[in-house]
């Protein structure tokens, strides 16, 4: 069957199996490794994509069910071929260790900030509660998001 979607701004039609997930389509068919596979049950968040602007677990979406909707992965954030300021903030604040959770964290953060542009640290933590990280202990991730919200470029 055909999966129909707008992927990172470009309309796409992809040959998929009926039982193929969006995660599998992105990685195995299209070679897009922005999304990772961590648990296959929607808990860990490393497979996060934005579907019509909202975060979803791509491991729990069937590719054939997309019906032309908009899907954004990490490379969809790039600005003029460079890093998005939120990505810069993550780098500068040490919010990246092994990096496996990072794409999911970034997408979830941006979707959240669209709805709540000036959150405090507690609200940031609540917003990221569904994205597991095993390396950083979360403090520097919150630092990075807070700095981005304040429009700062690097750690003070």
């Amino acid at each position: 069957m055909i999966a129909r979607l707008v992927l990172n701004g470009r309309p796409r039609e992809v040959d998929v199996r009926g039982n193929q997930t969006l995660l599998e389509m992105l990685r195995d068919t299209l070679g897009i490794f922005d999304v990772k596979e961590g648990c296959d049950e929607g808990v860990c968040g490393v497979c996060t994509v934005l579907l019509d602007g909202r975060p979803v677990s791509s491991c729990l979406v069937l590719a054939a069910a997309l019906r032309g909707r908009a899907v954004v992965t990490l490379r969809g954030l790039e600005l003029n071929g460079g890093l998005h300021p939120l990505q810069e903030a993550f780098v500068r604040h040490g919010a990246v260790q092994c990096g496996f959770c990072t794409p999911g964290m970034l997408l979830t953060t941006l979707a959240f900030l669209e709805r709540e542009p000036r959150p405090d640290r507690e609200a940031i933590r609540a917003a990221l509660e569904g994205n597991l990280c095993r390396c950083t202990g979360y403090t520097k991730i919150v630092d990075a998001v807070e700095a981005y919200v304040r429009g700062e470029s690097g750690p003070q």
Partner: protein
Amino acid sequence: MTDAVATREALRVVGRPVVRHDARDKVAAATAYAADWALPGMLHAAVLRSPYPSARIVRLDTKRAAAMAGVAVVLTARDVPRNTLSTDVPGQTTAVGPLRATLHVLAEGRVRHQGEPVALVAAETLELARDAVEAIEVEYEVTPGVFTPEAALAPGAPAVHGTGNLLAEWRIARGDVARALSGAKVVVEGEYTTQLVDAAYLEPESGVAWIDSDGVITIRLSTQVIEHFRDVAEVLQVPHNRVRVIGTYLGGGFGGKEDVTVEAYLGLLALKTGRPVKMVWTRQESLLSRAKRHPYRLRYRTGAAANGEIVAQQIELLADAGAYAYLSALVLLYSTVTAAGPYRVPAVEVDARVAYTNNPPTSAMRGFGAMQTVFAYESQMDRVARALNIDPVAVRRVNALRRGDTLPVGQVIETHVAIPEVCERAWAALGPRAPARAPHLKVGRGLACNFQPYGRIVWLHDWASAWIGFEMDGSLVVRCGCPDVGGGQASSLCQIASEVLGVTLTRISVHVSDSALTPLAGTTTASRQLYMSGNAVLKTARELRAQLLRVAAPMLGGDADELDMDEDRVVTADGRTLAIADLLRECARVGVPRSHLGVYHAPAGEPVDLATGSGKVFPDYTFGAHAAEVEVDTETGVVRVLAYAAAHDVGRAINPQSVEGQIQGGAVQGLGYGLMEEVVVEDGINLTTSFATYLIPTAADVPDVRAVVVESGEGLGPFNARGIGEPPIGPPAAAIANAIEDATGARITRLPITAERVARALGLLG
């Protein structure tokens, strides 16, 4: 105490929070992890695992599975050229005696734990491979199993292996414990229980293998140990130089990727099929069958004098090795050496045992046996303090080891011990006490300190090597076998090379973790990598620098000793400069190499027989202290961590931001251990095989961790650094337990500290 700030030489790059090169790649998802790899004609692999914890394999028939369309091969034990995997202390070439353990690649005739691998499939798609696994016909005859170490060591218990179930025992006896206890002002007795936990890295075990030119079986995978190429070669019965392991940047390791995981299967399947093969474990599979952290029963009798000084510790440890030894004997050794805590104790008895059971196997995990003991010794310390009405910081100060003191095992402490300082600073970093928000919410504070060995056991003769070379344009290449688990291992090596050779950080490229192409540096485990490969790079860079400056000296007129390397130039004392590219051209002209291969040998020692002798076991230790403020809901037992601080003496922080990150990450992993993580196994059956049931902390479960980086300027690593990978995971569980007692008077002695356990301890459940 050495004032590191006053005596530190002016450093340019080391000591700065530089941005890591891998961080840029990772935010852009440009890093190719082990599963982000595909080759033409690649097959997909799956494993058939035993559903029973103890059984004989009566019948195993793979014909139907092998005949399925799209299935390339189905393998069982008889297809493995050498079906024995030796889990040596990895990376070592020296004999390791009782620390050596063996297991099978695929089960032979019987299975000893749920999840034990029985057969292997490679097929055109992952779906077909899983279908084929389901089509393998296997009949088991369940046999009696044993599911606690106590039961395993009781007379008449079913034997997990041919031998008895006691896998290893270590003993320390010093001074007259009985007499000291009888003369003590207080004796605190406690029995503590720690649980089975999983490393739960977000990246599951993954890899791809293929046969490269000249028949080299190449395995690209997520691993903390590339030296396993030797183990794979033995399994495949091919020469060691025909197996190459390429370690990718890991999506987390924490000790769970220290043993052989997918390598042997991938090598086997690539060899048998002649095609590339990919294996990625599901989360369920990883939670089910990957080796875990040893659960412990820890019994302590601690005697103290009126002034709080500990006069004796009588300690009994019993750990669960699960079905296979893996690194259990070594883990137990770490527990034995650290069991009495970072304290001066004149009389100590430690009796430590680890037993086989039919539970999931246990092996390396961050902290490695020196972590479980912290829960016990710091709970005891707190109880002693309470019994004598002494404050928690004071009791640690009174008892802390000092340079020149001797550990129970007989090792003399040779470097600074920062226990008093880290305790005071962690405690102070909590800030003003939070008021209770409601009458049923009680607030309390707890302190716990620890010491964690860094570097390998000294009689294992640890070493690491590195190669550093200039390109003709002055850019630098560093090659080192050091796997990068996400803690900035590779980036630190660049910082060190930049410091010594004066090369701008952005002009350095580093290649790590390839057993054929990078000089071996040993495992990224045991908090040893900065110490070992850091020192290897430091030594190599210094030797290269000397080599080059000998050529530069006549070019600039003067002594090589008076030259410096900075900003990609050689500089004289009076400010004249020579561009590095010009120097390199001269080196080429006179035939002096622009590169150097160096080896760092850790100071070695003689083996110590813990039962009879004593002596130096570990090169050194990292000392730290954590402080926690908690709020306990006295109606439900729910514990909220309000504030948390963690202080460690790291000697010198090569990259302060990375050091803080390790401290914060380790502390949160420790909080997970303390509050919520548990692999629940009943009669050998694992009930927590998904992330819905195996719970690790989310951002909403923990507060900011205030990392306090203390730099004593003393450590055995490069620029006097100490290892920081493992130490921060030790104190949290005890800090929380101590804080809960402070808040409510209830002492919890079993982990994890769930709301129900607190509720029970508060008497809420009748």
